[in-house]
């Protein structure tokens, strides 16, 4: 396991571990399988037109990130990806939901950005990398916003 993985939420650390040892072809197959599981945010959470506040910055696939509160105060993540060819964005949406929904907010807020490259590979294009990081940034913004709200109410 690489340096820093132990600080990740357990589910995300497990996924990073899975991707670390695979070659490029298998990495692509695994990511496509994740992308195939993508489901758009349900209508009872958000409807078109998606609010600009949910837009992932710099994402050329027009990804939108939504967060709802679970009973324990943790996040449930939802996504929309407008580009039908945005496979990487869809795969990343599924992975973010699977690994960060329901995790402690402090851990979500501290996820290092290099997990994008650990999962998608170091030869990710800059445009793609920026967009995927933008999705993570919105997730972390939602976590920090709730942490700040909790601090204020203490």
């Amino acid at each position, binding site marked *: 396991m690489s340096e820093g993985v132990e600080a990740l939420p357990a589910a995300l650390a497990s996924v990073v571990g899975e991707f670390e040892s695979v070659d*490029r*072809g298998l990495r*692509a*197959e695994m*990511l*496509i399988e994740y*992308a195939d599981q993508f489901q758009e945010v349900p209508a009872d959470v958000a409807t078109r037109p998606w609010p600009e506040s949910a837009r992932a910055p710099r994402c*050329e696939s027009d990804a939108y990130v939504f967060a709802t509160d679970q009973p324990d105060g943790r996040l449930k993540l939802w996504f929309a990806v407008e580009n*039908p*060819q*945005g*496979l*990487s964005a869809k*795969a990343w949406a599924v992975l973010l939901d699977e690994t960060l929904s329901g995790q402690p907010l402090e851990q979500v807020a501290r996820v290092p*950005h*290099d997990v*994008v*490259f650990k999962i998608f590979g*170091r*030869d990710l*294009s*800059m*445009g*793609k*990398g*920026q967009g995927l*990081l933008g999705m993570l940034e919105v997730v972390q913004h939602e976590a920090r916003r709730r942490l700040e709200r909790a601090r204020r109410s203490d």
Partner: protein
Amino acid sequence: MSDTVQFADIAARGYAQPEVLVSTEWVAQNLTNPNVRIVESNEDSLLYPSGHIPGAVQVDWALDLNDPIRRDYLDRAAFEQLMARIGVTRDTTVVFYGDKSNWWACYAFWVFQLFGHTHAKVMDGGRLKWEKEKRSLTREMPKHAITSYGAAERDDARIRAFRDEVLSHIRAHKKLVDVRSPQEFTGERTHMPEYPQEGVLRGGHIPGARNVPWARAANPDDGTFKDAAALRGIYEGEVGLAPGDDIIAYCRIGERSSHTWFVLTYLLGYRNVRNYDGSWTEWGNAVGMPIERP
């Protein structure tokens, strides 16, 4: 090959060299043509393995077109190996297509021109149009017989510009087109600190460059190229380029600017356009380069 199908819509758009484009219908009718090789080049590396045009091979910009050690393109021997692997001879018509309005397809097309493979075309609309028309895609990997390809030495002089040439270019007050986003052009955005490959120390643009984001040349709904009148309105009407100008296009690493190079050279018939592939990642990191910021 049916010229009627190939040129029906494309010919009406007023391009200088309409024969460099083929329609999705033309590709559909030539899937098994032994003289045609369909090549997919994408930004998103997941797209080809998730499904591609039947028989299409992939040319990966990161793995196939670059020297693995130096920052440079592949050399003649590597190009010959690539062409042999994808089953192309010097007589094969290579048709490129890909995502993002053929951005990466044009990049591959440009690299192929460094080796003089002129039997090359781009499928208008790229992957987006093909998918929108609900044409078939497959995950089956094609098996093409390995060929023997004798390439010419790579010729960088005609369509590729290097840093010192760009310096001379701006001192001579010649035309430069920066095809990055307005935020990159102004220096507001440089790069992500975590980004491993394309970081840059300074923001801004090369002095004298005019900003025309590359995607303005394409119709966003289906990825097709805009017609010649619309393109002239952008490149000539808005920023004052002319077909006889000596022009250098650049972006961050030379991929987006290859799309603009393609548009100016083939669709508008400009005779002297070069792509500066060192682009902003070289210029913005090099010591002492002049930079303009608003």
